[in-house]
């Protein structure tokens, strides 16, 4: 059994602090935090791919699959347990990612980006044409339960946040170890030099494939959490601009730490919320300027602020 390292203890501490603070926070903040954490989970998948040198403009596919699994599981299978619904999303997503991964992990750079985008847009197209699933409007998620809790009678916003925090913590703890594992480092090695990786006896294909499937599964959890929190799913979850947002947030946070996607997702959600409030017709411009400033002054993302400080201190 490995001992918890400083990062893991910090993650546990922050998760507990957020969960306690949420009990005294207004509903709008609780909802915003839930969405930010859910988005952070999907971005985590994007970061996993970026660490292997791949940029996906199609992570919305898995986000949407997770969301629709929750919606469909409740509506057509009568499942109400949130964990079962999330598990359903993960199983469906992993099955699809295992098929798509065989093809997409053979490609690199723009070809990987465009291929992942294409698959995401295929799902978008299918959902838009599916009148039984509400077409472009999507449909509402049925009331859900979690152990003793029932969203019909309880504070569903708060419970959704608690569930999001718990899942995000578990996934962040897993990824912290994954990034330090041989396969995690092999992904970085593939980004750096594929020729050497092959001569070391590592299968590039197998390593990228495993990484891709895990990233998809995590994206699905983010989608499921969004569906549970928002109570609604629609095809835009698979639209390419949503996938673009995930890439935007990944760049905003950087790939240096498991906490970076969550911090970046929270900043993104807050900036977007306030930008829409301040300039309803020009909020995208504000987001664009923020990204421009990040690329110019923090090319390794917001997390590099912490590592710089640490470097200066040492």
């Amino acid at each position, binding site marked *: 059994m490995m001992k918890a390292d400083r990062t893991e203890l910090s993650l546990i501490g922050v998760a507990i602090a957020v969960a306690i603070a949420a009990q005294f926070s207004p509903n709008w903040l609780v909802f915003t935090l839930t969405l930010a954490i859910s988005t952070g989970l999907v971005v985590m998948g994007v970061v996993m791919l970026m660490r292997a040198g791949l940029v996906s403009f199609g992570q919305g596919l898995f986000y949407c699959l997770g969301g629709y699994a929750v919606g469909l599981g409740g509506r057509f299978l009568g499942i109400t347990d949130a964990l079962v619904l999330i598990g359903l999303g993960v199983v469906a997503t992993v099955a699809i990612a295992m098929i798509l991964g065989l093809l997409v992990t053979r490609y690199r750079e723009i070809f990987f980006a465009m291929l992942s985008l294409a698959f995401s847009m295929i799902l978008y197209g299918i959902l838009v044409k599916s009148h039984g699933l509400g077409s472009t409007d999507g449909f509402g998620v049925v009331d859900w339960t979690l152990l003793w809790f029932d969203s019909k009678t309880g504070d569903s916003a708060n419970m959704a946040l608690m569930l999001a925090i718990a899942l995000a913590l578990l996934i962040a703890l897993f990824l912290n170890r994954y990034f330090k*594992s*041989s396969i995690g*480092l092999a992904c*970085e090695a593939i980004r750096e030099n594929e020729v*050497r990786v*092959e001569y*070391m*006896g590592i299968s590039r294909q197998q390593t990228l494939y495993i990484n891709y499937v895990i990233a998809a599964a995590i994206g699905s959890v983010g989608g499921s959490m969004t569906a549970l929190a928002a109570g609604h799913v629609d095809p835009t979850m698979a639209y390419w601009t949503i996938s673009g947002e995930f890439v935007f947030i990944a760049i905003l946070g950087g790939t240096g730490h498991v906490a970076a996607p969550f911090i970046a997702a929270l900043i993104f959600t807050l900036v977007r919320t306030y930008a829409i409030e301040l300039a309803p017709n020009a909020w995208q411009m504000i987001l664009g300027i923020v990204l421009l400033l990040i690329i110019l002054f923090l090319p390794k993302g917001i997390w590099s602020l912490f590592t710089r400080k640490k470097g200066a201190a040492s």
Partner: protein
Amino acid sequence: MTEILKTEGLSRYFGAVTAAENINVTITEGEIVGVIGSNGAGKTTFINMVTGYLPPSKGSISFDGKPIKGLGPRKLMRKGLTRSFQIPQLFLELPVIDNLSIALAAAEHKQFQMLRPVHTPERLKAAEEILEQMHITEYRDEMVTAMPQGARKLLDIAIAMLGKPRMLLLDEPTSGVSMEEKYTLMDTVMEAVRARGLTVLFVEHDMEIVQRYVTRVLAFASGVVIKDGPVDEVLADEKVQELVTGKQHKPTASGGDA
């Protein structure tokens, strides 16, 4: 002595260009063989074919008595045949210790166990040992980008050795290294090679290095092996002098096994 590598009729064509033609070579275990030839003579094409980087157009290759033609670098590495590169192939944006740790993890040949932490005490110890053996311990925690060319060459060779090969192909180990560093680098490499009892085939342009470190030489010209034999005999050959080393080069008395 046991035969370890054998090529028969090995050829490679790029359209109308013949990069290698009918190469028949047998290397026995423990030999240190030099490969010489002017630029474009087919030396690297030969190395690339043997190590699975380039598929041959014709001919056969066997390693340890078994055919290996068509196998990729990964499978060949697992059979005990690997290489270093003229331009070191490293993970530039990762620390030196990570470069070595991933090589050590990969050498364990267990894909599933790749999920275990990369830095285990055993791997760190093994990495530190090879850093010391290659005299590059000072770069342990540096990014590869901070290393000079000679140190990068040594790291590249160290990574190849961590795969526990039986045969190592070195592609111009001293290219890009200063005159003063060449012999130190080669002494370090050869010491590590001997400690592991490896068979080595290495491409080299510097005839003094060849004379000092190899026992046998393959001389390439226009994709063909024009002479194969003991170092002094090959370097004294008129055709080799005309096509490879130049007329002015004469084998020195100090030549031969170092």
